[in-house]
Protein backbone atom coordinates (compact mmCIF):
# COMPACT_ATOMS: atom_id res chain seq x y z
CA UNK A 1 0.00 0.00 0.00
CA UNK A 2 2.73 2.42 0.85
CA UNK A 3 5.16 1.24 -1.83
CA UNK A 4 3.29 2.38 -4.97
CA UNK A 5 2.48 5.70 -3.30
CA UNK A 6 6.16 6.29 -2.63
CA UNK A 7 7.07 5.63 -6.24
CA UNK A 8 4.45 8.09 -7.41
CA UNK A 9 5.71 10.72 -4.99
CA UNK A 10 9.24 10.33 -6.30
CA UNK A 11 8.13 10.83 -9.86
CA UNK A 12 6.14 13.97 -9.06
CA UNK A 13 9.06 15.34 -6.99
CA UNK A 14 11.40 14.93 -9.94
CA UNK A 15 8.99 16.84 -12.14
CA UNK A 16 8.83 19.72 -9.72
CA UNK A 17 12.57 19.92 -9.11
CA UNK A 18 12.92 21.30 -12.59
CA UNK A 19 10.55 24.16 -11.78
CA UNK A 20 12.50 25.00 -8.69
CA UNK A 21 13.86 28.58 -8.54
CA UNK A 22 14.37 29.75 -4.94
CA UNK A 23 16.01 27.68 -2.31
CA UNK A 24 17.72 30.44 -0.34
CA UNK A 25 15.53 31.33 2.62
CA UNK A 26 13.68 28.10 3.15
CA UNK A 27 16.40 25.49 2.70
CA UNK A 28 15.59 23.66 5.89
CA UNK A 29 11.92 23.77 5.06
CA UNK A 30 12.51 22.18 1.68
CA UNK A 31 14.39 19.25 3.15
CA UNK A 32 11.43 18.52 5.34
CA UNK A 33 9.08 18.54 2.39
CA UNK A 34 11.22 16.22 0.34
CA UNK A 35 11.12 13.58 2.99
CA UNK A 36 7.36 13.32 2.93
CA UNK A 37 6.09 9.94 1.91
CA UNK A 38 2.47 10.86 1.26
CA UNK A 39 1.54 11.96 -2.27
CA UNK A 40 1.08 15.52 -0.99
CA UNK A 41 4.70 16.15 -2.02
CA UNK A 42 3.55 17.84 -5.22
CA UNK A 43 1.52 20.46 -3.33
CA UNK A 44 4.28 21.23 -0.86
CA UNK A 45 7.09 21.78 -3.35
CA UNK A 46 4.77 24.15 -5.18
CA UNK A 47 4.37 26.30 -2.06
CA UNK A 48 8.13 26.52 -1.54
CA UNK A 49 8.68 27.89 -5.04
CA UNK A 50 6.64 30.97 -4.07
CA UNK A 51 8.34 31.90 -0.82
CA UNK A 52 8.52 35.62 -0.07
CA UNK A 53 5.86 36.56 -2.56
CA UNK A 54 3.41 33.78 -1.67
CA UNK A 55 -0.20 34.86 -1.42
CA UNK A 56 -0.92 31.97 0.92
CA UNK A 57 -0.66 32.26 4.69
CA UNK A 58 1.07 29.20 6.08
CA UNK A 59 -0.26 27.56 9.20
CA UNK A 60 0.93 24.48 11.07
CA UNK A 61 -1.45 22.30 13.08
CA UNK A 62 -0.76 19.44 15.45
CA UNK A 63 -2.73 16.20 15.50
CA UNK A 64 -2.23 15.04 19.08
CA UNK A 65 -3.22 11.43 19.68
CA UNK A 66 -3.77 9.45 22.82
CA UNK A 67 -2.92 5.83 22.06
CA UNK A 68 -5.33 3.07 23.12
CA UNK A 69 -4.66 1.84 26.63
CA UNK A 70 -6.33 -1.59 26.41
CA UNK A 71 -6.89 -3.92 23.49
CA UNK A 72 -10.15 -3.63 21.64
CA UNK A 73 -13.04 -5.96 22.44
CA UNK A 74 -13.13 -9.13 20.43
CA UNK A 75 -15.59 -9.63 17.61
CA UNK A 76 -18.11 -12.40 18.53
CA UNK A 77 -16.53 -14.66 15.90
CA UNK A 78 -13.09 -14.01 17.36
CA UNK A 79 -14.42 -14.72 20.83
CA UNK A 80 -15.86 -18.09 19.76
CA UNK A 81 -12.64 -19.04 17.99
CA UNK A 82 -10.59 -18.08 21.01
CA UNK A 83 -12.70 -20.24 23.29
CA UNK A 84 -12.49 -23.16 20.90
CA UNK A 85 -8.71 -22.88 20.67
CA UNK A 86 -8.38 -22.72 24.46
CA UNK A 87 -10.54 -25.82 24.78
CA UNK A 88 -8.51 -27.70 22.17
CA UNK A 89 -5.22 -26.74 23.78
CA UNK A 90 -6.50 -27.82 27.17
CA UNK A 91 -7.56 -31.20 25.88
CA UNK A 92 -4.30 -31.79 24.06
CA UNK A 93 -2.04 -30.61 26.87
CA UNK A 94 -0.04 -32.82 29.21
CA UNK A 95 -0.40 -32.77 32.98
CA UNK A 96 1.88 -30.24 34.67
CA UNK A 97 4.10 -30.78 37.74
CA UNK A 98 1.67 -29.08 40.05
CA UNK A 99 -1.26 -31.16 38.81
CA UNK A 100 0.78 -34.37 39.20
CA UNK A 101 1.47 -33.41 42.79
CA UNK A 102 -2.22 -32.79 43.43
CA UNK A 103 -3.11 -36.22 42.01
CA UNK A 104 -0.45 -38.03 44.03
CA UNK A 105 -1.51 -36.41 47.25
CA UNK A 106 -5.18 -37.10 46.70
CA UNK A 107 -4.32 -40.75 46.08
CA UNK A 108 -2.25 -40.83 49.25
CA UNK A 109 -5.11 -39.32 51.24
CA UNK A 110 -7.55 -41.88 49.91
CA UNK A 111 -5.11 -44.68 50.80
CA UNK A 112 -4.70 -43.25 54.31
CA UNK A 113 -8.45 -43.25 54.84
CA UNK A 114 -8.71 -46.90 53.85
CA UNK A 115 -8.90 -49.29 56.78
CA UNK A 116 -5.93 -51.44 55.90
CA UNK A 117 -3.44 -48.58 55.93
CA UNK A 118 0.07 -49.31 57.08
CA UNK A 119 2.25 -46.25 57.34
CA UNK A 120 5.41 -48.35 57.16
CA UNK A 121 4.40 -49.55 53.73
CA UNK A 122 4.36 -46.02 52.47
CA UNK A 123 6.80 -45.49 49.64
CA UNK A 124 10.35 -44.27 50.08
CA UNK A 125 9.45 -40.75 49.06
CA UNK A 126 10.68 -39.24 52.29
CA UNK A 127 8.74 -36.99 54.61
CA UNK A 128 5.37 -35.69 53.61
CA UNK A 129 5.17 -32.08 52.56
CA UNK A 130 4.10 -29.55 55.12
CA UNK A 131 1.89 -27.73 52.65
CA UNK A 132 -0.28 -29.91 50.48
CA UNK A 133 -0.57 -28.90 46.86
CA UNK A 134 -4.32 -28.65 47.28
CA UNK A 135 -3.93 -26.18 50.14
CA UNK A 136 -1.64 -24.03 48.02
CA UNK A 137 -4.23 -24.03 45.25
CA UNK A 138 -6.91 -22.89 47.67
CA UNK A 139 -4.68 -20.09 48.93
CA UNK A 140 -4.10 -18.92 45.37
CA UNK A 141 -7.83 -18.94 44.63
CA UNK A 142 -8.40 -16.73 47.64
CA UNK A 143 -5.78 -14.26 46.47
CA UNK A 144 -7.39 -14.11 43.04
CA UNK A 145 -10.80 -13.37 44.56
CA UNK A 146 -9.35 -10.54 46.60
CA UNK A 147 -7.78 -8.92 43.56
CA UNK A 148 -9.99 -6.23 41.98
CA UNK A 149 -9.70 -5.68 38.26
CA UNK A 150 -10.11 -2.12 37.01
CA UNK A 151 -13.19 -1.81 34.81
CA UNK A 152 -12.51 -1.80 31.07
CA UNK A 153 -15.43 0.42 30.16
CA UNK A 154 -16.72 3.16 32.45
CA UNK A 155 -19.90 4.60 31.01
CA UNK A 156 -19.71 7.98 32.79
CA UNK A 157 -16.17 8.76 31.73
CA UNK A 158 -16.89 7.60 28.20
CA UNK A 159 -19.58 10.20 27.76
CA UNK A 160 -17.39 13.04 29.04
CA UNK A 161 -15.82 14.34 25.85
CA UNK A 162 -13.22 16.49 27.59
CA UNK A 163 -11.66 13.62 29.53
CA UNK A 164 -8.61 11.89 28.10
CA UNK A 165 -9.50 8.68 29.95
CA UNK A 166 -12.56 7.92 27.87
CA UNK A 167 -12.79 5.00 25.44
CA UNK A 168 -9.61 3.23 26.50
CA UNK A 169 -9.79 0.80 23.58
CA UNK A 170 -9.64 3.49 20.85
CA UNK A 171 -7.16 6.17 19.94
CA UNK A 172 -8.38 9.70 20.66
CA UNK A 173 -7.58 12.95 18.88
CA UNK A 174 -7.46 16.42 20.39
CA UNK A 175 -9.70 19.17 19.02
CA UNK A 176 -9.63 22.79 20.13
CA UNK A 177 -12.04 25.61 19.49
CA UNK A 178 -10.11 28.41 17.89
CA UNK A 179 -10.92 31.74 16.34
CA UNK A 180 -10.45 31.61 12.58
CA UNK A 181 -11.27 34.83 10.76
CA UNK A 182 -14.60 35.93 12.14
CA UNK A 183 -15.95 32.69 13.57
CA UNK A 184 -15.02 30.16 16.18
CA UNK A 185 -14.41 26.72 14.73
CA UNK A 186 -13.54 23.31 16.09
CA UNK A 187 -10.30 22.18 14.57
CA UNK A 188 -6.90 20.66 15.28
CA UNK A 189 -4.85 23.21 17.27
CA UNK A 190 -2.96 25.47 14.85
CA UNK A 191 -0.87 28.65 14.73
CA UNK A 192 0.51 30.74 11.94
CA UNK A 193 4.01 30.20 10.68
CA UNK A 194 6.60 32.87 11.42
CA UNK A 195 9.72 33.69 9.45
CA UNK A 196 12.84 31.78 10.36
CA UNK A 197 11.32 28.75 12.06
CA UNK A 198 10.63 25.32 10.71
CA UNK A 199 7.05 24.16 10.32
CA UNK A 200 7.58 21.55 12.98
CA UNK A 201 8.56 24.28 15.44
CA UNK A 202 5.36 26.07 14.53
CA UNK A 203 3.41 22.93 15.32
CA UNK A 204 5.21 22.62 18.67
CA UNK A 205 4.28 26.22 19.39
CA UNK A 206 0.68 25.42 18.54
CA UNK A 207 0.74 22.61 21.09
CA UNK A 208 2.34 24.82 23.73
CA UNK A 209 -0.16 27.60 23.18
CA UNK A 210 -3.07 25.46 24.34
CA UNK A 211 -4.53 26.40 27.74
CA UNK A 212 -3.47 23.03 29.18
CA UNK A 213 0.15 21.88 28.94
CA UNK A 214 0.70 18.58 27.15
CA UNK A 215 3.81 16.47 26.90
CA UNK A 216 4.04 14.95 23.47
CA UNK A 217 6.52 13.32 21.07
CA UNK A 218 6.34 14.41 17.47
CA UNK A 219 6.53 11.70 14.82
CA UNK A 220 8.94 12.85 12.14
CA UNK A 221 9.88 16.26 10.82
CA UNK A 222 7.60 16.13 7.82
CA UNK A 223 3.90 17.01 7.81
CA UNK A 224 1.47 14.18 7.32
CA UNK A 225 -1.32 16.11 5.62
CA UNK A 226 -2.33 19.39 4.04
CA UNK A 227 -5.52 21.43 3.88
CA UNK A 228 -5.90 24.32 1.47
CA UNK A 229 -8.49 27.01 2.12
CA UNK A 230 -9.25 29.79 -0.36
CA UNK A 231 -10.88 32.86 1.10
CA UNK A 232 -14.23 33.90 -0.42
CA UNK A 233 -13.80 36.22 -3.40
CA UNK A 234 -15.02 39.27 -1.49
CA UNK A 235 -12.24 39.08 1.07
CA UNK A 236 -9.48 38.00 -1.28
CA UNK A 237 -6.74 40.60 -1.83
CA UNK A 238 -3.49 40.73 -3.78
CA UNK A 239 -1.42 39.39 -0.90
CA UNK A 240 -3.79 36.85 0.63
CA UNK A 241 -5.54 34.26 -1.43
CA UNK A 242 -6.09 31.81 1.37
CA UNK A 243 -4.38 29.60 3.95
CA UNK A 244 -2.56 26.30 3.76
CA UNK A 245 -2.63 24.20 6.88
CA UNK A 246 0.09 21.56 7.37
CA UNK A 247 -0.63 18.82 9.87
CA UNK A 248 1.94 17.19 12.11
CA UNK A 249 1.38 14.03 14.11
CA UNK A 250 2.27 13.79 17.78
CA UNK A 251 1.71 11.17 20.44
CA UNK A 252 0.74 12.04 23.99
CA UNK A 253 3.39 10.88 26.42
CA UNK A 254 1.89 11.57 29.86
CA UNK A 255 -0.82 9.28 31.14
CA UNK A 256 -2.92 11.84 33.05
CA UNK A 257 -3.10 15.00 30.98
CA UNK A 258 -4.90 18.06 32.33
CA UNK A 259 -8.46 18.61 31.13
CA UNK A 260 -9.94 21.84 29.95
CA UNK A 261 -13.49 22.65 28.78
CA UNK A 262 -12.39 24.07 25.43
CA UNK A 263 -10.48 20.92 24.43
CA UNK A 264 -12.15 17.73 23.27
CA UNK A 265 -10.81 14.22 22.93
CA UNK A 266 -12.67 12.49 20.11
CA UNK A 267 -12.59 9.18 18.29
CA UNK A 268 -12.26 9.11 14.51
CA UNK A 269 -15.96 8.57 13.84
CA UNK A 270 -16.93 11.42 16.18
CA UNK A 271 -14.63 13.89 14.45
CA UNK A 272 -17.01 14.32 11.54
CA UNK A 273 -19.64 15.92 13.79
CA UNK A 274 -17.30 18.70 14.83
CA UNK A 275 -15.19 19.37 11.75
CA UNK A 276 -16.21 21.10 8.58
CA UNK A 277 -16.74 18.59 5.72
CA UNK A 278 -13.85 19.66 3.44
CA UNK A 279 -11.45 19.88 6.40
CA UNK A 280 -12.56 16.54 7.77
CA UNK A 281 -12.03 14.90 4.37
CA UNK A 282 -8.34 15.90 4.39
CA UNK A 283 -7.88 15.01 8.04
CA UNK A 284 -9.45 11.57 7.63
CA UNK A 285 -6.76 10.66 5.12
CA UNK A 286 -3.93 10.56 7.64
CA UNK A 287 -5.75 9.45 10.76
CA UNK A 288 -5.12 5.75 11.29
CA UNK A 289 -7.75 4.00 13.31
CA UNK A 290 -6.85 0.43 14.14
Amino acid at each position, binding site marked *: *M*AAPCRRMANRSLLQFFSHFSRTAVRNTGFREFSS*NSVCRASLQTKTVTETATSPWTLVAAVCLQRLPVISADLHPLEQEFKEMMLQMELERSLVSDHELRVLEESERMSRKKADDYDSDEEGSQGNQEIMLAQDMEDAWEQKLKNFQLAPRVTADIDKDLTSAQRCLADSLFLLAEQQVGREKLWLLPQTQWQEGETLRQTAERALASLPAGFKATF*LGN*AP*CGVYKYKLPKAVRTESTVGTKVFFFKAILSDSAPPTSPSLLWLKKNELQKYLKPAYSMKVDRFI*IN*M
Partner: protein
Amino acid sequence: MYPVLRKVSITQQAFVLNPALTVCRARPSVQHPVWCTDSVNERQYRSMPTHGIGRWKYLLPKRQSKEKKKKGRQMRPIVAATDTAYGTLNVMVSGYDMTLVEHYSQYIHNLCHRLGIKVSESYALPTKSTEVMLMQEVGTKMYVDAVLKTHERIVQLSSLNTTLCPVFMEVLLKTQPEGVQLSVNEHTEDQFKARFKARPELEGLIAQINH
Protein backbone atom coordinates in the same frame (compact mmCIF):
# COMPACT_ATOMS: atom_id res chain seq x y z
CA MET B 1 6.26 -58.76 -61.04
CA TYR B 2 8.34 -55.89 -62.18
CA PRO B 3 6.73 -53.33 -59.89
CA VAL B 4 7.15 -55.69 -56.99
CA LEU B 5 10.78 -56.18 -57.75
CA ARG B 6 11.35 -52.52 -58.10
CA LYS B 7 9.69 -51.89 -54.79
CA VAL B 8 11.96 -54.34 -53.12
CA SER B 9 14.99 -52.69 -54.55
CA ILE B 10 13.83 -49.29 -53.40
CA THR B 11 13.27 -50.48 -49.89
CA GLN B 12 16.65 -52.11 -49.92
CA GLN B 13 18.16 -48.82 -50.93
CA ALA B 14 16.24 -47.10 -48.14
CA PHE B 15 17.73 -49.53 -45.65
CA VAL B 16 21.18 -48.86 -46.98
CA LEU B 17 20.62 -45.14 -46.56
CA ASN B 18 19.26 -45.36 -43.04
CA PRO B 19 22.32 -46.85 -41.34
CA ALA B 20 24.38 -44.11 -42.97
CA LEU B 21 22.10 -41.52 -41.48
CA THR B 22 22.26 -43.05 -38.08
CA VAL B 23 26.02 -43.16 -38.28
CA CYS B 24 26.07 -39.48 -39.15
CA ARG B 25 23.80 -38.66 -36.23
CA ALA B 26 25.82 -40.67 -33.79
CA ARG B 27 29.04 -38.82 -34.60
CA PRO B 28 28.07 -35.49 -32.98
CA SER B 29 27.46 -37.21 -29.69
CA VAL B 30 30.84 -38.90 -29.80
CA GLN B 31 32.60 -35.60 -30.51
CA HIS B 32 31.08 -34.00 -27.35
CA PRO B 33 31.78 -36.34 -24.54
CA VAL B 34 31.00 -33.61 -22.00
CA TRP B 35 27.35 -34.31 -22.63
CA CYS B 36 25.55 -36.78 -20.52
CA THR B 37 27.72 -39.84 -20.19
CA ASP B 38 24.95 -42.18 -21.07
CA SER B 39 23.78 -40.34 -24.14
CA VAL B 40 25.88 -42.50 -26.42
CA ASN B 41 24.60 -45.74 -25.04
CA GLU B 42 21.17 -44.59 -24.00
CA ARG B 43 18.52 -45.12 -26.51
CA GLN B 44 15.74 -42.56 -26.82
CA TYR B 45 12.38 -43.99 -26.00
CA ARG B 46 10.24 -44.03 -29.08
CA SER B 47 7.24 -42.81 -27.04
CA MET B 48 9.07 -39.85 -25.47
CA PRO B 49 10.99 -38.15 -28.24
CA THR B 50 11.34 -34.89 -26.29
CA HIS B 51 12.42 -36.49 -23.04
CA GLY B 52 14.85 -34.23 -21.18
CA ILE B 53 14.55 -31.52 -23.78
CA GLY B 54 14.96 -28.61 -21.37
CA ARG B 55 17.97 -29.92 -19.46
CA TRP B 56 20.89 -27.54 -19.21
CA LYS B 57 22.37 -27.92 -15.73
CA TYR B 58 24.59 -30.75 -16.95
CA LEU B 59 26.18 -28.34 -19.42
CA LEU B 60 27.59 -26.10 -16.68
CA PRO B 61 31.06 -26.78 -15.33
CA LYS B 62 31.06 -28.69 -12.07
CA ARG B 63 31.07 -26.35 -9.01
CA GLN B 64 32.41 -27.18 -5.57
CA SER B 65 29.53 -27.85 -3.20
CA LYS B 66 28.92 -24.80 -0.98
CA GLU B 67 30.84 -25.16 2.25
CA LYS B 68 28.28 -24.95 4.97
CA LYS B 69 29.35 -22.12 7.22
CA LYS B 70 27.70 -22.10 10.58
CA LYS B 71 25.12 -19.37 10.27
CA GLY B 72 25.65 -16.63 12.83
CA ARG B 73 29.35 -16.97 13.56
CA GLN B 74 30.17 -14.03 11.33
CA MET B 75 28.29 -10.88 12.09
CA ARG B 76 26.37 -9.31 9.27
CA PRO B 77 27.88 -5.91 8.49
CA ILE B 78 26.12 -3.13 10.35
CA VAL B 79 24.52 -0.76 7.85
CA ALA B 80 25.44 2.84 8.59
CA ALA B 81 22.76 5.51 8.80
CA THR B 82 22.48 7.88 5.86
CA ASP B 83 20.59 11.13 5.43
CA THR B 84 17.46 9.40 4.22
CA ALA B 85 17.50 6.09 6.03
CA TYR B 86 18.28 4.71 9.43
CA GLY B 87 20.95 2.01 9.70
CA THR B 88 20.57 -1.41 11.28
CA LEU B 89 17.80 -1.14 13.86
CA ASN B 90 16.77 -3.62 16.53
CA VAL B 91 13.10 -3.74 17.39
CA MET B 92 12.96 -5.52 20.72
CA VAL B 93 9.72 -6.96 22.06
CA SER B 94 9.71 -8.26 25.61
CA GLY B 95 7.14 -9.39 28.13
CA TYR B 96 6.02 -12.08 30.54
CA ASP B 97 3.42 -13.72 28.29
CA MET B 98 5.18 -15.73 25.61
CA THR B 99 2.22 -16.08 23.23
CA LEU B 100 1.67 -12.31 23.14
CA VAL B 101 5.38 -11.56 22.68
CA GLU B 102 5.80 -14.12 19.89
CA HIS B 103 2.64 -13.11 18.06
CA TYR B 104 3.53 -9.44 18.26
CA SER B 105 7.03 -10.05 16.90
CA GLN B 106 5.54 -12.12 14.08
CA TYR B 107 3.11 -9.28 13.37
CA ILE B 108 6.01 -6.81 13.16
CA HIS B 109 7.89 -9.13 10.81
CA ASN B 110 4.87 -9.51 8.52
CA LEU B 111 4.24 -5.76 8.60
CA CYS B 112 7.83 -5.16 7.44
CA HIS B 113 7.28 -7.56 4.55
CA ARG B 114 4.16 -5.68 3.51
CA LEU B 115 5.75 -2.24 3.77
CA GLY B 116 8.88 -3.31 1.93
CA ILE B 117 11.24 -2.91 4.88
CA LYS B 118 14.10 -5.38 4.68
CA VAL B 119 14.41 -7.63 7.71
CA SER B 120 17.95 -8.91 8.13
CA GLU B 121 17.46 -11.16 11.15
CA SER B 122 14.82 -12.24 13.60
CA TYR B 123 16.00 -13.98 16.73
CA ALA B 124 15.16 -14.56 20.38
CA LEU B 125 17.29 -13.76 23.40
CA PRO B 126 17.46 -16.34 26.20
CA THR B 127 14.57 -16.32 28.66
CA LYS B 128 15.27 -14.69 32.00
CA SER B 129 13.56 -16.12 35.09
CA THR B 130 12.70 -13.83 37.97
CA GLU B 131 11.69 -15.32 41.30
CA VAL B 132 9.23 -13.29 43.32
CA MET B 133 9.89 -13.92 46.99
CA LEU B 134 7.51 -12.83 49.70
CA MET B 135 8.19 -12.45 53.37
CA GLN B 136 6.33 -14.92 55.51
CA GLU B 137 3.62 -13.48 57.71
CA VAL B 138 5.11 -15.16 60.77
CA GLY B 139 8.87 -15.01 60.97
CA THR B 140 11.58 -13.51 58.82
CA LYS B 141 12.04 -16.25 56.25
CA MET B 142 11.24 -15.54 52.61
CA TYR B 143 9.48 -18.06 50.49
CA VAL B 144 9.11 -18.29 46.75
CA ASP B 145 5.78 -16.90 45.67
CA ALA B 146 6.03 -17.00 41.90
CA VAL B 147 8.47 -17.46 39.05
CA LEU B 148 8.14 -14.90 36.25
CA LYS B 149 9.81 -15.55 32.93
CA THR B 150 10.75 -12.61 30.69
CA HIS B 151 10.79 -13.47 27.00
CA GLU B 152 12.52 -11.27 24.42
CA ARG B 153 12.28 -11.30 20.67
CA ILE B 154 14.30 -9.10 18.33
CA VAL B 155 13.46 -8.19 14.75
CA GLN B 156 16.49 -6.66 13.05
CA LEU B 157 15.75 -4.26 10.21
CA SER B 158 18.57 -3.59 7.81
CA SER B 159 17.45 -0.12 6.73
CA LEU B 160 14.40 1.98 7.43
CA ASN B 161 13.44 4.94 5.25
CA THR B 162 12.95 8.12 7.24
CA THR B 163 9.81 8.77 5.22
CA LEU B 164 8.33 5.45 6.26
CA CYS B 165 9.50 5.61 9.85
CA PRO B 166 6.64 7.73 11.35
CA VAL B 167 3.97 5.56 9.73
CA PHE B 168 5.72 2.38 10.84
CA MET B 169 6.16 3.60 14.41
CA GLU B 170 2.56 4.73 14.65
CA VAL B 171 1.22 1.36 13.51
CA LEU B 172 3.54 -0.41 15.95
CA LEU B 173 2.42 1.74 18.87
CA LYS B 174 -1.25 1.39 18.08
CA THR B 175 -1.14 -2.39 17.83
CA GLN B 176 1.06 -2.96 20.88
CA PRO B 177 -0.72 -5.43 23.18
CA GLU B 178 -0.97 -4.99 26.94
CA GLY B 179 1.90 -6.39 28.96
CA VAL B 180 4.38 -6.17 26.09
CA GLN B 181 7.22 -3.64 26.03
CA LEU B 182 8.54 -2.32 22.75
CA SER B 183 11.91 -0.67 22.27
CA VAL B 184 13.77 0.35 19.12
CA ASN B 185 17.51 0.95 19.24
CA GLU B 186 20.52 0.81 16.97
CA HIS B 187 22.36 -2.44 16.55
CA THR B 188 25.90 -2.48 17.94
CA GLU B 189 28.66 -5.05 17.85
CA ASP B 190 28.47 -5.40 21.63
CA GLN B 191 24.89 -6.53 21.38
CA PHE B 192 25.95 -9.17 18.89
CA LYS B 193 28.85 -10.34 21.08
CA ALA B 194 26.57 -10.53 24.11
CA ARG B 195 24.61 -13.37 22.53
CA PHE B 196 27.57 -15.75 22.67
CA LYS B 197 28.37 -17.82 25.71
CA ALA B 198 31.39 -16.87 27.75
CA ARG B 199 34.31 -19.31 27.51
CA PRO B 200 36.03 -19.25 30.88
CA GLU B 201 38.86 -21.71 29.98
CA LEU B 202 39.77 -19.73 26.89
CA GLU B 203 39.77 -16.49 28.84
CA GLY B 204 41.88 -18.10 31.56
CA LEU B 205 44.44 -19.30 29.03
CA ILE B 206 44.57 -15.87 27.37
CA ALA B 207 45.10 -14.25 30.77
CA GLN B 208 47.92 -16.73 31.45
CA ILE B 209 49.57 -15.93 28.16
CA ASN B 210 49.36 -12.20 28.81
CA HIS B 211 50.83 -12.37 32.30
